[in-house]
């Protein structure tokens, strides 16, 4: 399985619908200070089910474009992530799967390939692909590197609990 592309719609500094990608094996996101790089990581984490508190805002509605200056844009806001499953021996096509999350007020709606699903199903389908968002074992947020090394012994035990 690999990450093919992201589609952001009115999410933080990303106005309207924009596609981010395609992603190769080793990708670097570059750009000037304050241009919106970390907002791309927030978009990806948001789509996988991360809560607002980890995305540098207090409420989900603050993620809408313009909310940070009090003028959130009307209309839909959300993020869709497309994964591709590498074809096995007998299969022909690469099978694509899109997970998308939209912001409606302070709640969210979750869809897999366009069909509305409950959060529990959304998370279990992601877990089937090896993505355990709660364990946060595949994200390192800006500025967090050193505190990972300096975790207290107890915190490290909790990290192992979440993964096992």
């Amino acid at each position, binding site marked *: *399985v*690999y*990450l093919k592309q992201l589609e952001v719609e009115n999410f933080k*500094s*990303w*106005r309207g619908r*924009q596609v*981010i*990608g395609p*992603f*190769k*094996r*080793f*990708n*670097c*996101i*570059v*750009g*000037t200070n*304050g*241009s*919106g*790089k*970390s*907002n*791309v*990581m927030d978009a*990806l*984490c948001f789509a996988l089910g991360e809560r607002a508190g980890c995305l540098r805002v207090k409420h989900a509605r603050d993620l809408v*474009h313009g909310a940070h*200056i009090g003028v959130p844009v009307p209309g839909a806001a959300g993020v869709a992530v497309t*994964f591709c499953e590498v074809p096995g021996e007998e299969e022909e096509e690469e099978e694509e799967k899109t997970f998308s999350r939209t912001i409606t007020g302070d709640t969210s709606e979750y869809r897999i390939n366009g069909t509305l699903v409950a959060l529990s199903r959304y998370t279990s389908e992601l877990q089937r692909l*090896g*993505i*355990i968002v709660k*364990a946060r*074992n*595949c*994200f*390192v947020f*800006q*500025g*967090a*590197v*050193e505190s*990972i*090394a*300096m*975790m*207290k*012994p*107890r*915190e*490290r*035990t909790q*990290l*192992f*609990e979440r*993964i*096992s």
Partner: protein
Amino acid sequence: RYQLFSQCFEHVCVAIDQIYKRLCRNTSAQAFLSPENPEEPYLEGINYNCVSPGKRFMPMDNLSGGEKSIAALALVFAVNSYRPAPFFVMDEVDAALDNTNIGKVTSYIREQSREDFQMIVISLKEEFYSQADSLLGVYPEFDGGMCSHILSLDLTPFPLT
């Protein structure tokens, strides 16, 4: 439940030392995870220590900023190797690294991204992002407020510097 914990712990203990040696490109480097309570590790804390190349065993507090960053990356990669996620996202993890360590980390990532996991890294340093397969350039547009736009560039046709 305790069974699962011990299984995970044993796996990561072995993996972290191998990964730290590969990140430092030096077999004398060592990384240890030691439980405060060896009988039942899940009941108390777990200590983490690293011996960076050319140095002696010392508490993690005494390491420098760059040395701590390498130690943290080894832990993150080792924990992930127990239940590998298909991709990794890291935001400016190279901030405290000097150019030599950037070289070591990027070559480790290039090796791993071929086999195991896909890598998405936000970086400001040319020494780092010049090693990638593809660049996603974010730029701001100002018309009243600021909004972000993106360009993508495939680097694979160009020789690696």
